[in-house]
């Protein structure tokens, strides 16, 4: 008989089994696509590349869903926020690895490469000799389906992203060990508490005044009723005197009623002011408590992965600025997006060059301007510099 514990264990194991089946399915799909490329020429190279990107994204979505229960879970960091550094690392990784796989897989299949002609060998040997690397030209210039060359600019760009990711983690680690100075927040809570006490006091005074005037009006109403009764019961000759007394009682009551109405209105205003102050105090106190709970050192964290938002990519990271846009992040996002897109277009151009792809000795991925790397480096430098500075008062 199956115990409760074993049932639970089976339930926990099930998602891993599903992941394995998915991976197996997509491995088979990739195999089918690769064979199709060579044997039947079903897809254009660019379409194959996009297909490869799609598969990698799907795999990431699967992993993210498995780990963080969200398709974008791979981008969520330890603070349950979507991370710009992770996005960059993934963009570069997917771009280069998918391009590498798209180029290299057909080359490893039979007849995947063009014949090594004497012209190609001669050119290769000349290049090896001129490079001064000391390599044997005969050994260096043989068929090499896996020889895909990554240009230094590309490696540098990926290195900058990786260094930025590592640097970002270091800065975050340092900020986690600091404590937030909550004096300012506590002062805000105290101010709201004082305001509530002031309005409460004012409300109590208005109520006391209203009580006094209401009591006075009630007493005068009793007098008025007595005067009315006296007037009704008065003999004819005493009527004028009773009428005078009745009129005086009526006038006193009217004045008291007017004062009571005014006091009632003033009390209502005081009551509204107190209600507003009370709500404000409750909100500030709740916000402060929330900030206390959501604080990870100086850094702001979400309670769960479900709270992660795409806006996190552009928001500050500390308690002091997480509700604001971090312009260094916005700048870095656009730089990365533009460079990755431009490089993607360059890769797509290469993928349409069948001669280059079937070159028996080497395929070199496109290079780009080193000044672009400088811009990327500046952007990452600004990002890390802004990140290094504390944007929250520390208690240290």
């Amino acid at each position: 008989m199956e115990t409760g514990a074993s049932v639970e264990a089976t339930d926990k194991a099930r998602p891993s089994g599903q992941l394995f089946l998915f991976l197996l399915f997509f491995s088979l799909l990739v195999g089918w696509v690769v064979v199709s490329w060579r044997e039947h020429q079903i897809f254009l190279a660019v379409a194959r590349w996009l297909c490869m990107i799609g598969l990698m994204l799907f795999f990431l979505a699967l992993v993210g869903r498995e780990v963080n229960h969200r398709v974008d879970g791979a981008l969520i960091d330890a603070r349950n926020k979507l991370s710009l550094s992770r996005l960059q690392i993934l963009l570069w990784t997917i771009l280069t690895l998918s391009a590498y796989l798209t180029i290299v897989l057909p080359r490893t299949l039979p007849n995947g490469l063009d014949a090594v002609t004497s012209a190609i060998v001669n050119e290769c040997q000349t290049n090896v000799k001129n490079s001064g690397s000391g390599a044997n030209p005969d050994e260096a210039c043989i068929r090499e389906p896996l020889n895909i060359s990554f240009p230094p600019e590309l490696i540098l760009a990926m290195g900058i992203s990786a260094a930025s990711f590592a640097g970002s983690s270091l800065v975050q680690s340092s900020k986690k060990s600091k404590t937030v100075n909550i004096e300012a927040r506590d002062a805000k809570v105290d101010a709201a508490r004082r305001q509530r006490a002031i309005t409460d006091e004012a409300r109590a005074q208005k109520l006391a005044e209203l009580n006094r005037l209401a009591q006075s009006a009630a007493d005068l109403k009793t007098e008025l009723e007595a005067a009315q009764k006296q007037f009704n019961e008065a003999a004819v000759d005493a009527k004028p005197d009773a009428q005078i007394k009745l009129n005086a009682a009526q006038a006193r009551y009217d004045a008291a009623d007017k004062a009571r109405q005014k006091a009632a209105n003033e009390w209502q205003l005081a009551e509204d002011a107190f209600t507003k102050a009370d709500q404000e105090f409750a909100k500030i106190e709740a916000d402060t408590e929330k900030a206390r709970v959501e604080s990870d050192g100086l850094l702001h964290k979400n309670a769960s992965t479900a709270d992660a938002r795409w806006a996190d990519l552009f928001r500050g990271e500390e308690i002091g600025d997480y509700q604001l846009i971090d312009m260094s992040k916005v700048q870095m996002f656009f730089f990365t997006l533009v460079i990755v897109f431009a490089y993607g277009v360059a890769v797509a151009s290469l993928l349409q060059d069948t001669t280059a792809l079937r070159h028996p000795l080497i395929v070199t991925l496109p290079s780009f301007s080193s000044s672009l790397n400088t811009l990327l480096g500046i952007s990452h430098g600004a990002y890390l510099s802004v990140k290094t500075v504390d944007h929250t008062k520390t208690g240290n």
Partner: protein
Amino acid sequence: MGEKVSIGKIVSVNADTKDGVIMPVDETDDKGVYYQFAEFADIDVAYPKEGQLVQFVKEDTNAGIQAKQITVLSPSKKMAS
């Protein structure tokens, strides 16, 4: 001097049974205590409404302490009467 008056707000009104409940606003004196009024005749308006500020006198009756001699003080008095 007449009977002691209290200030409160009407928290519920039942138009069918012609009764309702008043909650005193003076929290120090009557915190959490509610007073029922049994007849609309005790109120100086024809149709009392929830939320209206009133003054009233507490009277001991067979049904317990009830609100009597109710006078509506809030601005909506004119609309209600």
